[in-house]
């Protein structure tokens, strides 16, 4: 029992060390040339543009269902006019960054781990080194920057679409007054609510990039290893997003 626990702790510490080493390696290279701008743009397109449909659909339905649920509850004590505020606050402060984070972790984190993992097991990463190209600078740094920058942009899109989803259901299905809905939404919301979501988004983006790249880059053991790395990238990213969300919220609003 003790041995099993010890091994678990050891493997956890090793994994943490790998994440820290990847982060430190990327940070060290951030301030020196060469910068691979083409790779950065490619990754930004892959992370940002390609994730848009999934993010938009998720945000739309989240806003819609949130409006429906809030209305049902508020109707019990005749406070239906607060629906707009609850939808907007929830989406902007919490659900936008978290749900977009989870979607991007599933799509992008998995893709980073699978791509780099395959490159590792087929010796393509070693080949980069022998062609006098630093693999961390060429593969990890552009991905890490791209996902950290793109996440807040995706969350801005998700915020607007989520709020619109709530508006559409409240106004067109639940017959609420559109002017009251918009007024309640805008009057109580502060710019800091919006910013806090974006800070969370950037942090989650960095986590997704760091975990996906580290898992793939340190992958071992052929096809099975790539599978394990990909699964772990998604699971660890999702868990990290949910756990760090609490601490970020406590830090920003506590």
């Amino acid at each position: 029992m003790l041995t099993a626990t010890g091994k678990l702790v050891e493997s956890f510490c090793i994994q943490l060390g790998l994440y820290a080493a990847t982060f430190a390696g990327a940070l060290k290279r951030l301030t020196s040339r060469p910068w691979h701008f083409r790779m950065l743009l490619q990754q930004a397109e892959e992370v940002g543009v390609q994730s848009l449909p999934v993010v938009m659909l998720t945000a739309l339905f989240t806003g819609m269902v949130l409006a429906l649920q809030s209305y049902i509850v508020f109707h019990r004590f005749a406070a239906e006019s607060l629906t707009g505020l609850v939808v907007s606050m929830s989406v902007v402060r919490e659900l936008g960054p978290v749900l977009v984070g989870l979607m991007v972790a599933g799509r992008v984190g998995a893709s980073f781990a699978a791509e780099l993992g395959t490159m590792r097991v087929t010796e393509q990463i070693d080949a980069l080194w022998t062609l006098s190209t630093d693999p961390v600078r060429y593969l990890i740094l552009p991905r890490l920057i791209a996902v950290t920058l793109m996440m807040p942009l995706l969350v801005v899109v998700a915020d607007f679409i989520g709020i619109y989803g709530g508006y559409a259901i409240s106004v067109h299905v639940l017959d609420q007054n559109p002017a009251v809905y918009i007024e309640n939404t805008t009057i109580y919301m502060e710019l800091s609510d919006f910013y806090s979501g974006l800070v969370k988004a950037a942090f989650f983006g960095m986590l997704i990039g760091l975990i996906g790249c580290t898992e793939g880059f340190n992958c071992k053991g052929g096809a099975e290893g790539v599978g394990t790395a990909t699964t772990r990238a998604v699971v660890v990213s999702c868990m990290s997003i949910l756990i760090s969300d609490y601490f970020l919220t406590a830090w920003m609003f506590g």
Partner: protein
Amino acid sequence: MSSEIPRISIRGLSKRFDDKIILDGADLDIMPGKSTTVIGMSGTGKSVLIKCVLGLLKPDSGEILIDGENWLELKEHEQLQRMQRVGMLFQGGALFDSLSVWENVSFALLRRGLSKTKAKERAIEVLEWVGLYDIEDKMPAELSGGMAKRVGLARTICHKPDIVFFDEPTTGLDPIMSDVINKLIVRLHKDSGTTILSITHDMKSASMISDHIALLCHGRIHMQIPANELDSNQDPMLRQFVEGKAEGPINCSIWGKQIEEAIQR
């Protein structure tokens, strides 16, 4: 061996994975402009040796001197800079899936800032040298094993390195394609006087491409001889390996298995 200073000198190289000793004080000299091949059973640490020399694995102890400079003492960016003089052909080709054939071949030149037009011209020239025509715009997934190996060879030599490493250059190829690759390596060696370090367990390939042959056994270089003495040398370990006998001084059942397991871990 002559009294020249070796181009590559490996001294007391040791590497272990967990408690498994893979290299146990290996010594090897590769003379300038010579082709040396390290032979040995699968799993004896040949790949570990070459990866240590290339800086892909960090040895536990020992020295790797290239042109008198200890590569293990170099900083990462200094090592990367020195890699511009080096070429490496990986066992599986290790072509970049996301890049076309010509981008793969001229990868090192593109990274050094050569224009796309000139890099593509150079790639086509080298592809023709390895006997491949009109494939520059294909993707690696569209190539056969033999073609991928030749594209890998083209990428290895495109930036005109003066030291080239070959990791099992003929493994997984049919006899005809193996012969093609061997002849290309011989041609490269003769045409440009490149210093070559290869690892293989294909004896036909070893005797064809090498000036010297070294036998790696039980973590050490057991012997290093001129390639033309391969058939006449009566060392029991060498004879067991060359003649492919299970019985003999090389304890094949335990050693190879231990290393494979250790590397996997």
